[in-house]
């Protein structure tokens, strides 16, 4: 959520709070304020702003572009403006759009809108979201024209078929939710946040050829949150309990800290997770972050990924410290990476993340690792961690072979056991780099 959004929200809350002299009215207002506040919080938990607020644009006025293989999709304006936003939506229409992906005019929404997850939102939360978007968000006249998708994806009717086939029916969802029981109410809350509003699976669960998520909840089996396909070139890792490639060695506290600050001793946020933290999890309550963490820790490792647990192996460190850079990529690692990530691969947590034992490094697919070496990245500031850190990109100074060597070294050193990377792998990623490199706005510290 942007600073502007918070200000707008605060202004509404204050304005509403100072209205109404009569006590009954005041009580109604107080109740209404509470609903608006709950809706604002659910908008954070649902990460609405990540897509519907363009960088530098008015809150929820849309326009953020998604570059998909099938064309460019623009997030619509969801402010209560009656002409260009959702001001004419009734609550029922709003509920249907959110949970079933059906627009007010009956057309089907592109499933970039995670309605298969939002189907799990409770009536109460949907109501709060509706009240918030109608009364707590400033209407902004901003027409988003959806003209970037190429045929056949520019047609809406095939989407309806997709929706019928793959999007869950809210009634079934409700029945399933009622059937599942949790011994720990915190885990129950976590499952709701992750599977519902948080729509973590939209990125972290693999999709079928027909693009639906292969599992929508933990109850659907071990593919749920087992690592997704590349989003904007970043490969979302598994959030399950794999020791090497998942969250197996992260404890609850690590996850809570990561969601609040984007950094903890075992790793740092990059790529798409930066926005999820920036707009979403950093603004959630500690209790909800703990609920998410506790729930994620209940997810068993996927059966196919059982491997010996990671333990630190000092062989590479000893060699580097003895001046032996004969291993493939070792010299390049020392010259370009070791100042921050150290010859022992431990980095300087939580300023510069470790590479030794880092799940991102050991991911079977090296896409994220290659991309971050080429393009660099920014560890963004959050409210609890005001410092941002920039990793420089090496696309201009390293050719594909050098990157492949370096990444291969990182993936095999210090007990890491991921396979080597080829020059072709690097070339494939390099071709997808944004032309306006560096594409990111730089932090000011």
């Amino acid at each position, binding site marked *: 959520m942007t600073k502007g959004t918070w200000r707008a929200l605060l202004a509404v809350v204050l304005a509403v709070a100072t209205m109404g002299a009569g006590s009954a009215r005041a009580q109604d207002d107080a109740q209404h304020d509470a609903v608006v506040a709950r809706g604002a919080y659910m908008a954070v938990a649902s990460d609405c702003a990540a897509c519907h607020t363009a960088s530098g644009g008015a809150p929820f006025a849309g326009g953020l572009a998604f570059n998909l293989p099938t064309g460019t999709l623009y997030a619509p304006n969801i402010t209560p403006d009656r002409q260009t936003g959702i001001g004419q939506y009734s609550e029922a229409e709003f509920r249907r759009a959110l949970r079933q992906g059906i627009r007010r005019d009956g057309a089907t929404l592109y499933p970039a809108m995670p309605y298969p997850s939002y189907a799990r939102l409770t009536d109460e939360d949907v109501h709060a979201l509706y009240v918030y978007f109608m009364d707590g968000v400033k209407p902004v006249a901003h027409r988003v024209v959806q003209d970037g998708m190429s045929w056949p994806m520019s047609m809406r009717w095939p989407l309806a078929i997709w929706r019928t086939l793959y999007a869950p029916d809210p009634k079934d969802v409700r029945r399933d939710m009622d059937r599942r029981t949790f011994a720990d109410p915190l885990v129950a809350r976590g499952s709701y946040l992750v599977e519902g509003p948080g729509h973590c699976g939209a990125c972290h669960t693999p999709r079928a050829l027909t693009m639906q998520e292969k599992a929508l909840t933990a109850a659907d089996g071990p593919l749920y949150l087992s690592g997704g396909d590349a989003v904007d070139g970043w490969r979302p890792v598994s959030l399950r309990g794999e020791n090497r490639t998942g969250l197996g060695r992260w404890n609850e506290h690590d996850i809570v800290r990561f969601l609040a600050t984007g950094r903890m001793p075992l790793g740092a946020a990059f790529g798409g997770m930066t926005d999820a933290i920036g707009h979403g999890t950093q603004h959630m309550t500690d209790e909800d972050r703990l609920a998410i963490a506790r729930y994620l820790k209940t997810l068993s490792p996927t059966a196919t990924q059982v491997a010996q647990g990671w333990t630190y192996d000092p062989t590479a460190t000893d060699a580097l410290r003895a001046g032996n850079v004969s291993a493939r990529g070792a010299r390049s690692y020392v010259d370009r990476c070791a100042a921050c990530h150290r010859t022992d691969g431990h980095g*300087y947590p939580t300023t510069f993340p470790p590479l030794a034992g880092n799940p991102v490094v050991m991911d079977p697919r090296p896409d994220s690792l290659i991309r971050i070496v080429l393009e660099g990245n920014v560890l963004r500031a959050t409210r609890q961690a005001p410092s941002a850190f920039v990793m420089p990109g090496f696309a201009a100074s390293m050719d594909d072979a050098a990157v492949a060597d370096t990444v291969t070294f990182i993936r095999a050193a210090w007990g890491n056991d991921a396979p080597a990377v080829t020059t072709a792998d690097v070339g494939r990623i390099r071709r997808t780099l944004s032309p306006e490199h560096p594409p990111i706005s730089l932090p000011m510290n």
Partner: protein
Amino acid sequence: MSDDARRLKPVDVVIVGGGWAGSIMAKEMTEAGRSVVMLERGPDRSTASEGAYPASIDELEANFRYKLFQDLSKNTVTIRNNSQQTALPYRRMAAFLPGEGVGGAGLHWSGVHFRIPPDDLRMRSRVIEKYGAGFIPEGMNLQDYGVTYEELEPFFDKAEKVFGTSGEPYMINGKVVGKGNVFSPSRSDHFPLPALKDVYTAHLFRKAAEEAGFHPYSLPAANASRQYVNPYGAQMGPCNFCGYCSGYACYMYSKASPNVNILPVLRQHPLFDLRAGCHVLKVELDADGRRATGVTYTDPDGKVVTQPAEMVILTAFQFHNVRLMLLSGIGRPYDPVRNEGVVGRNFVYQNVTTSTVWLDRGVETNQYIGAGGGGVAFDDFNSENFDHGPLGFVGGSPVWVNQAGVRAIAAAHSGGPPGTPRWGSAWKAGMIDTYRHSLRIDAHGSNMAYRDVYLDLDPTWKDAYGQPLLRMTFDWKDNDIRMNRYVVDRIGDVAKAMGARRVNLTKREFGRPFDTRQYQTTHLGGGAVMGSDPGTSALNRYLQSWDVHNVFVIGANAFPQGTGYNPTGMVAALAYWAAHHIRTTYLASPGPLAG
């Protein structure tokens, strides 16, 4: 008010200058709930852009084209050695290198981070106690600060914690706890980080200094020896001794800077408004000149605007602060002939000479390695740590190996030992020998204040905005030359203990004037000093103008005379000290804090 200036919405506090002092004051004032506008004449800057590796470590751009330094084509100073001469503008960076842009010189400093010796704070009293008033040479304006070390200690401590300073303590709460500087005063707490490791030359120097009977210690450095989170939540990386500190933004985020240590938090604060590219022309005063009403500045489009404020804090670097006071009519300008007035009085520099020691050719001194604030020093000849009686001079000098990293062009510039040709194979051999096998030892001495050394407005030269330049009238005096020569001879003692193959002791020479063409140091001081007597100080002990109570002036301009140490630690502590008294006393009832 300037008649044609656009008036902006009033704020509580306007701060002039976005370096260390400005950032500290802005942080403190926003913590106190005051709205703050910080005006910085240079561009906005950050590690992410100015420190982007590897482009950032371009020595030519950084150290020879002065990428991050003041734009002298818009504003500079004029300089002369004495009041009989005509001063001329300082057009090319050389003797000193003032900063510009958000972070100020704090973005590209080295990082030596000292507390001032307690005796330096009451130097006049101490010299008279020890040697009698007659010991003070004719024409030397020796003064006390009006504040004690005990009063400042909590603020030194706070500054070290904000900066993430690495060091080894000697005494905490009266108990000896470590191998720090035996001459350093007791502390209330440890340094937030352990001392940086000694580079090889510092290690050799430490051993030799001990053998020569001195008391070596690790320089306190605002280069983080480990990753660090300061009390504001701002994070630093660890120093990797890359040697690119002075002149550079630290790409490791390990050198403390306002940009890394304070501004990330401040920029998020709703009461904080940073305006870069805004050059302040003057502080506006009310009709009777007793109260500031705001400042007038040129904005990035060149428009002249007035920012009304309840309080004005000048944090624009030592000589810019003095100049703004003179341009605004705050305090009485100094008149060296009548020895009256205070603004411009007691301008001081620092008395630094660097000697070179060549070791055996089997010893590689690895001068490319370095940390700007790291190294080993001894204080046996600093402050009042030794008996000046038989020596007949006031002041002193720490001695140190502060290997900040010798870079390629600098190494080529230095060439070989004196007498080496400046070209050809002999030059090359001398340069290589010097680069590989030598080390440098500094005498980082104090410079005393004198009646005929001062700052005033130049009668001839004007800046790009049509305002008079500041004029420096400065020369070295015999007292300071004697001090330097005595201490540099002690470097000779240490060099002998190191088994030097060759030594080149660099000393000040009697009768050789201040030479603006050679880099010496940017540690300029005084000119608007603090004290307890309005007749000899422009500021009271809270750094508040005696004459205009809602103007505070923070910087090395407040030092009544020079010290042997680097100024930043003292400036930061004074900023926190002043801020503390503004917050606890001034804001509740604005008025003079000292009678």
